[in-house]
């Protein structure tokens, strides 16, 4: 194969089927979340929920006697669910 042919093959537009099969660098996917997310997005969403839950817990739940560790365990469970199925 000549260099020119190789270049032509490399730059030839992909068919629709090939385009769908082509792996993306960000590995975006659709889970139960309403948007397409990659691994970083799902970790970010988990951290955001964890912080929000902790602050809510400090303000409203902890004064009733429930430890913050319960919130952390729930947040961890939600994080695992989001990272795996989100």
């Amino acid at each position, binding site marked *: 194969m000549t260099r020119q042919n190789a270049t032509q093959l490399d730059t030839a537009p992909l068919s629709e089927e090939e385009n769908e099969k082509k792996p993306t660098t960000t590995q975006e996917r*659709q889970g139960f979340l309403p948007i397409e997310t990659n691994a970083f997005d799902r970790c970010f969403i988990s951290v955001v929920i964890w912080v929000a839950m902790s602050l809510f817990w400090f303000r409203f739940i902890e004064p009733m006697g429930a430890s913050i560790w319960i919130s952390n365990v729930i947040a961890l469970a939600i994080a695992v669910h989001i990272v795996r199925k989100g």
Partner: protein
Amino acid sequence: MQSNKLGWILLAPTLVILFFFGVLPFLYVVFVSFHQWNPFAASPEMIFNGAENFRRIVFDDAFLSSLGVTVAFVVFAVLSELIIGYLLAQAFMKEFPGKSIFRTIHTLPLIMAPIIVGSVWKLMTTPSIGIIPHYLDEWFGITMNIGTSAPAAFLTIVIMDIWHWTPLVTLTLIAALVSLPRDPFEQAQIDGANKAQTFWHITLPMITPALVATIFIRLMDALRTVDEVWMLTGGGPGSSTRFLGVHIFKEVFPKTNYGYGSTISVIVLYLTIVVCWLLYVSMLAPRKNRKG
């Protein structure tokens, strides 16, 4: 592979600078936020106190009050800037006499440092010598004193911010409007679309990326406004203009409460990131039902 290596080499200086001046200070602030630390006290060492600062912040009335004031400021200022900025951008798209001079004058506030803007507005609004209270009193019989009236102080800060930052919005929206193709607008005209329909269905969707970028910039700036407010009102009267930036400043410098000040900074950063991310997701992120 070769181009990848070259890319990393070209990126390396930026990444190194970003790491030392962006990532490391951020990690340090997060670290300090879990400590009680007053470096000027009798015992200046850091004392780890777990999440105690975060526990304190959700009950801190001063913080919650400044959060409310900041949110009100951000909503009023950024919305007004977007609307006025868009209208001015549309005006600058048309030809009129003196357009270039007006555009230059309109852009001048952008080159002024916020602290200068604050001192100029302080001069203009001081009751005994300021031009604004003088003419408000002479023409309308309104007595304006931002030192004693909380609504007047808040409104003055909003107007000052609009005056200072609307040109930025105008410039970015002019850039967005200039780059729009003419065909969809001509087709809409042929189809009989009115101006509102053209704006809502063609202009707005096409300038959305530029609009979102502008909102991000203004939102982040407005959430950490300090110098203008500090110069104009110092957070008063009372705590009516004590925005989050001013609150952090007062907590860290006069009170030298570095640990708790870092906690507030981390929470403000968290809120900024979450608000910007929600905005991005609601306006730009690809959704399940409109893939591709």
